[in-house]
């Protein structure tokens, strides 16, 4: 489990994160959404010990990332938006880096590379930006760490590779693993997420499981008479509306619409969840 308590972070004089409190549990895939520059990457770096918070506490399975204990470093893997590699071959890379991850599986690594259509006997320098990213994603999935942090994983991937990634991730996750994905391409990942957290101006303004969202909110094409419309936009089928869910059925979730709605009407939406809130810290 990862627990953040009142975490704040400032770059020089710019406040990036303020009072972020959140829990990430094993067996779940979390989506971290937010506009560019709201602190998504910073949050991931804080949890992996690459940056240190100025205020608040972070623990990952009881250890503090900042101390960078070997046991902590063995249990996390961070895939940054832009991958950096030394000028060696893939085989040399595996030889050099895999020993740091006791659960690393070469079989899984080859499986991922094959899915991404990258040969094992390549020089890393000869690969394109997208291919390097796929190489790092393959290594990250094969490292089998209990905590996996992905910063914009589908950025720079072509259409087939996006599909391959969406197929590989379900094979990686199990009840011992926790995945946190920052993204602004919500449609890419909507079928994979268990939970959605939304950052705005350095604050966590929304955090709910997909299950709770589909119970509390109704994404429809036409609001029931008298229902308070939380968000609406015109589309080809008329008008897409977001209201509270009194239909008795769980609703499908449109993440893009949810995101827009939370940005414009976050307080009201959070109120709908308030009576069912059970924050476990």
């Amino acid at each position, binding site marked *: 489990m990862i627990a953040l308590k009142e975490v704040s972070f400032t770059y020089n004089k710019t406040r990036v994160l303020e009072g972020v409190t959140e829990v990430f549990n094993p067996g779940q895939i979390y989506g971290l959404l937010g506009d560019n520059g709201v602190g998504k990457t910073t949050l991931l770096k804080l949890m992996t010990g690459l940056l240190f918070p100025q205020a608040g506490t972070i623990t990952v399975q009881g250890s503090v990332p900042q101390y960078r204990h070997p046991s902590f470093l063995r249990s996390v893997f961070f895939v940054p938006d832009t991958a950096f590699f030394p000028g060696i071959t893939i085989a040399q890379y595996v030889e050099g880096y895999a020993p740091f991850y006791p659960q690393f599986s070469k079989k899984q690594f080859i499986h991922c590379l094959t899915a991404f259509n990258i040969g094992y006997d390549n020089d890393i320098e000869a690969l394109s930006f997208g291919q390097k990213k796929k190489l790092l994603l393959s290594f990250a999935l094969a490292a089998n760490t209990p905590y996996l942090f992905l910063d914009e994983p589908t950025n720079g991937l072509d259409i087939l590779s996006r599909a391959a990634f969406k197929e590989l991730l379900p094979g990686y996750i199990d009840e011992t693993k926790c995945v946190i994905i920052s993204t602004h391409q919500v449609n890419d990942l909507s*079928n*994979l*997420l268990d939970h959605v957290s939304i950052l705005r101006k350095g604050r966590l303004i929304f955090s709910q499981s997909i*299950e709770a969202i*589909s119970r509390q909110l109704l994404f429809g094409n036409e609001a029931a008479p008298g229902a308070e419309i939380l968000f609406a936009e015109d589309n080809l089928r008329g008008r897409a509306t977001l209201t509270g869910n009194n239909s008795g059925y769980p609703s499908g979730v449109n993440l893009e619409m949810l995101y827009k709605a939370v940005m414009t009407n976050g307080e009201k939406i959070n109120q709908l969840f308030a009576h069912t809130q059970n924050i476990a810290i």
Partner: protein
Amino acid sequence: MNFNNNQPIYLQIVDFICEKILLAVWKQEEKIPSVRELAVQLSVNPNTVARSYDFLRSQEIITDKRGIGYFISANGIQQAKQYRRNLFIEQELPLLARTLHMLDIAPDELDQLLTRYKQKLQYEK
């Protein structure tokens, strides 16, 4: 599999499986893919597939044989049909009725269209 937005994904997977059963692609008392296999196949979160399987079990459409896997129930077709019929009547029919009303299609006209459609299906078989 194409996902639409009106239903949660776990219920869309339930529909997908019911259709497999009703079209006899998956047979009664046969083993079905594990949660993980189906998750990878459909590119969805395994937790979502687990929810679908829980739901199907509660509807007695599938059964869980501990340690072996999930199987279509002995009366899976009947159970799946029952569930899909209820869903059709409660959720899909009102939408259809609304469109029919909007387009002024009377019941006997619809009846003719359905008969023609049935003939076409039989012809194709």
